[in-house]
């Protein structure tokens, strides 16, 4: 109890983050794997504290564009990183793809699984959760796949827009929607609540890029980017279901 009181008091008393802190803005789908990698990175680099900022890739880019003090940016798609590149927000030489993922349709675990995108367009499926395409890369992949299948207008009509891919997962887990589009790594986190109905072929491969933010002067930033590509970090990512880039 006393330790908790002390901990809370420290939080209240402490000011801004110390200069040595490394701030990593990462796509929401990386949450669990990156938290583990962060702990391992801190152990390997004594004196460096890693703090994460998880959200959909779109808002993370907006924050960096408006001058948020971020050192490393990892997005869930190439498009967001391309925008960061065009706006000169990241150091191009440090950019690298570090994992791949796949887009899947999930349904609540106790429901019969839909078999195809066409099934989702049927009246029996009333609401489908999708990340808002303007904000969430998973939503953008979904929209492109549905447009290619000629189903976007019909499924958009029953779309429940979510702020991150993890919100989609939550909506499906609570059975508030009949189906949702998430990454296979997200679906694997809740095997008792959601099940994968089928994998969605995407126009472009789901490849995650990482880069050092241009405004960062933290020497640990490049070390973190290198660490994410190292065997120990890749092993953590593989354990959460991410594929090789």
């Amino acid at each position, binding site marked *: 109890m006393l330790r908790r009181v002390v901990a809370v008091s420290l939080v209240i008393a402490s000011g801004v983050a110390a200069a040595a802190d490394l701030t990593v803005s990462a796509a929401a789908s990386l949450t669990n794997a990156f938290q583990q990698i962060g702990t391992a990175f801190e152990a390997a680099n004594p004196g460096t504290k890693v703090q994460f900022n998880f959200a*959909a890739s*779109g*808002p993370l*880019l*907006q924050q960096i*564009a408006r001058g948020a003090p971020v050192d490393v940016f990892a997005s869930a798609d190439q498009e967001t990183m391309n925008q960061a590149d065009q706006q000169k927000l990241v150091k191009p030489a440090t950019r690298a793809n570090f994992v791949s993922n796949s887009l899947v349709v999930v349904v609540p675990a106790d429901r019969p699984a839909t078999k195809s995108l066409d099934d989702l367009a049927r009246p029996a499926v009333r*609401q489908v959760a999708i990340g*808002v395409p*303007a*904000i969430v890369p998973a939503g953008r992949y979904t929209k492109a796949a549905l447009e290619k299948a000629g189903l976007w207008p019909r499924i958009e009509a029953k*779309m*429940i*827009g*979510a*702020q991150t891919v993890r919100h989609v997962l939550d909506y499906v887990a*609570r*059975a*508030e*929607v009949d189906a949702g589009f998430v990454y296979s790594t997200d679906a694997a986190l809740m095997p008792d609540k959601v099940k994968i109905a089928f994998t969605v072929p995407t126009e472009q491969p789901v490849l995650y890029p990482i880069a050092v933010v241009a405004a960062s002067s933290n020497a640990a930033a490049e070390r973190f980017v290198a660490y994410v590509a190292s065997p120990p970090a890749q092993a953590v990512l593989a354990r959460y279901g991410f594929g090789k880039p």
Partner: protein
Amino acid sequence: MASASLDAAWIALGLSLKVALWATALDLVLGVAAGFALARLRFPGRELVDSILLLPMVLPPTVLGYYLLVVVGRRGWLGGWLEGTLGIRLVFTWQGAVLAAAIVAFPFVCKSARAAFEGVDVQLEQAAHVLGLGKVAVFFRVTLPLAWRGILAGLLLAFARAFGEFGATLMVAGSIPGKTQTLSIAVYEAVQAGQDDLANLLVVLTSATCVAVLLLAGRIAPMRIPGRS
């Protein structure tokens, strides 16, 4: 400015007004009833009930949103029953947004109603009763008119709070354009997506509406709005 974003802004404004008006109407009935009960009834645990009814004012909206999701969601005990027997769904509907807004705004009406009823001279009610009015008639013709000013001030604050509701609404009703995407949620989403043009339009619209509400409030209940006495 694209006319599409102008349309989106007006739709969001209309929705915000609709949700806030319904929430205020709901709070008018429930808040006045609860305020009257707290002011006039003597029962054990009255102050505890008062505190619990005030909770939405102090609890973070996300906590309320989570409670609501657990209770009225499809898997929640109330939500499951509502959908199973009445076919009513609250999550991801504008009615859900009304419920969230009504709960966060409830304490404003309840608190001011209680104070207003406590300020009514009981002798006036007794006089009306002696002159032959029934209990219900005394309430509607004597007590309520005497307490009305205070209740109205509470209602205006409740409306303002409901109009700006964000956290609980987003959790319960989501962000569906034209259905549950109120002004405050539309601002959030426009900023997230980097649509500054739309965000600018939305915040100007929101600010203008709030100024209009405050001007109206000053006209209706000039003595009761804080800072205007």
